[in-house]
């Protein structure tokens, strides 16, 4: 219990610390005096631009997208009743990857502006197909999982085809997009993402009881008065809306939806009233930290944040598994 609180407190304190670090560190280091000058309005134009127009929206974008991915992952794991579930199981990643690949390979450089739209369309289309095909007098978690595998494999085959035969420069650009990054963040994109996310995230926070019940299985949930099929459909819709928007904003960032809920469970337990905010916190922190590392470690070259997410997230989860190796479960 005590170790949980320490973890939670550390995570909460890390948010402002990481945000500050994101503003200060980078290709051009901003001093504390410069930051202070921003507050009293005496800062130079250059400092203003670097901090307020580039770094702040980028850090906030990473935090927001990470939070969204963490929430979507927690929902997916509850709805599928599978610890390996993530929004990708709904075909979201495969659909977005195929759509993005077609745009990059088909339109060459001209397609860059279309990528967010294509990603969102591919993700939602695939999730819709998965749900429609698994509907047969209601749905079941296992059928959604299996149909998701099949449709994901089909879209994946299309994507593999592009990777194997398209122009190698296009393939490289596709891989960078597939890895996911917050490189292009600005206030407009951030505002759009936040506006889109407000309603689904609020609904997800209201649905914590449904999520708790679904975890026990269809029969128990139904006997406790839940309309299982309707609830599952709505939750899948939420999950798709949330992760589709993050795909549009940052490309495919895979790891967070899977891992954030597991880390959060160690901090806040399995009840969704605490798990959803905790997953959001962990996801946001992870992506913000990943982007900070991604743009500083090899500066001026930048790695896609999605790659660094796994590179720093995986050892952390390994450490958690190791640190709690004597725990009962």
């Amino acid at each position, binding site marked *: 219990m005590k170790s949980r609180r320490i973890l939670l407190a550390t995570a909460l304190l890390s948010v402002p610390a990481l945000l500050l670090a994101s503003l200060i560190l980078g290709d051009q280091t901003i001093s504390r005096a410069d930051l202070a000058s921003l507050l009293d309005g005496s800062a130079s134009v250059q400092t203003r631009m670097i901090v307020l127009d580039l770094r702040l929206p980028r850090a906030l974008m990473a935090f927001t997208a990470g939070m969204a991915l963490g929430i979507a992952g927690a929902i997916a794991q509850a709805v599928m009743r599978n610890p390996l*579930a993530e929004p990708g199981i709904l075909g979201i990643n495969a659909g977005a990857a195929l759509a993005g690949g077609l745009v990059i390979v088909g339109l060459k450089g001209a397609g860059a502006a279309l990528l967010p739209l294509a990603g969102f369309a591919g993700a939602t289309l695939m999730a819709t197909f998965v749900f429609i095909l698994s509907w047969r007098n209601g749905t079941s978690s296992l*059928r959604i999982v299996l149909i998701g*595998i099949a449709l994901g494999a089909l879209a994946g*085959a299309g994507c593999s085809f592009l*990777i*194997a035969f398209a122009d190698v420069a296009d393939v490289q650009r596709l891989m960078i997009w597939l890895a996911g990054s917050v490189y292009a963040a600005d206030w407009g994109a951030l505002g759009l993402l936040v506006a889109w996310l407000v309603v689904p995230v609020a609904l997800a926070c209201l649905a914590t009881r449904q999520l708790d019940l679904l975890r026990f299985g269809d029969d128990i949930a139904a006997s406790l008065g839940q309309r299982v099929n309707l609830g599952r459909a709505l939750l899948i819709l939420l999950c798709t809306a949330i992760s589709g928007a993050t795909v549009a904003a940052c490309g495919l960032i895979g790891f967070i939806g899977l891992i954030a809920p597991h880390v959060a469970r160690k901090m806040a337990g399995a009840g969704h009233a605490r798990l959803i905010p905790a997953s959001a916190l962990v996801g946001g922190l992870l992506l913000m930290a990943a982007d900070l590392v991604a743009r500083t470690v090899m500066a001026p070259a930048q790695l896609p944040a*999605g790659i660094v997410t796994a590179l720093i997230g995986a050892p952390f989860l390994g450490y958690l598994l190791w640190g709690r190796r004597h*725990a009962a479960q």
Partner: protein
Amino acid sequence: MRSGQADALRVLGLAILFCMTILVAVLSIGAGTARLSFVTVAEALFAFDGSRDHLIVTMLRLPRVLAGAMAGAALAVAGAVMQAATGNPLASPGLLGINAGGAFAVVAAMALQMTGSLGDGNGLVWYAFGGAAIAGFAVHALGSLGPRGGTSLKLVLAGAVIGTFLTSLTSAILIFDQATLDAVRLWTVGSLSGRTMGQVLAVAPYIATGLAAALLLRGQFTTLSLGSDISGALGQHPLLWRTLSVVIVVLLAGSAVALAGPVGFVGLVMPHVARLTIGADYRWIVPYSAVGGALLLVMADTVGRGLFASQDFPVGVTMALIGAPFFLWLARYRLRGA
């Protein structure tokens, strides 16, 4: 009596499937740019006379078909073992980090120029096999931490984590190194092109050992699939059996990745196909997966060569195109209860 009849039906089904696999394999050897008759293929196999046609059969087509059949069978059985050991329908050989480990080893070796082109000799096969094996055992070690040797949940989490970690490293290399990306991209989506008899024979013992072990222990996997509480009550030591499963999966899937590249679909889907067709008993799932996996991969490779008239069409793509619609139908109409 009824269960005896059901068993007889299952044996019959298995025999039919096996004959189909042989038939497709022979057709596959005959099909291609140089179309060879059934008789020529048989003569090349049993009365080799050194003619051009016979050389095509023994040097090019036979190794390719054998590699496909072995990789398909190995991956499907490895998938069945993984799903039994973890009790998770999303489990596949790739979940032990095997595909990611193999791919990372190959890409790293090529980026550091430790090996030449993909086609040359057996070097690549060993990099892939070694990377897959190290990743598999690392996953097992991380997943077995804790009192009484961890849980299957820890195993799959450790696998997902290490797998993603290695995949990210691979992407990081490929994003910055266009030459390696160009050389390796066909392999990373799964391809049987250019396999030699030497490579096939090099990994054959590992696949044979893994398949034999899985077939001998198939009854135990049924018990294992009931979950750690029940299998423990029935006398299975959880850590021992999980370790044994990991060894079998590494042998099978590691060799398969070395032969055909990191193909995922067959290992994930074939055990489900078997389960949806003949029920949840691993005594039947294991042999059905073996034969079905071989059939699917050989068929996919033949179709790829036939339809697209290309030696290099990646088998990973055709396999999903052939297998996924069938699997979709099964999942939609044959899945009851659950």
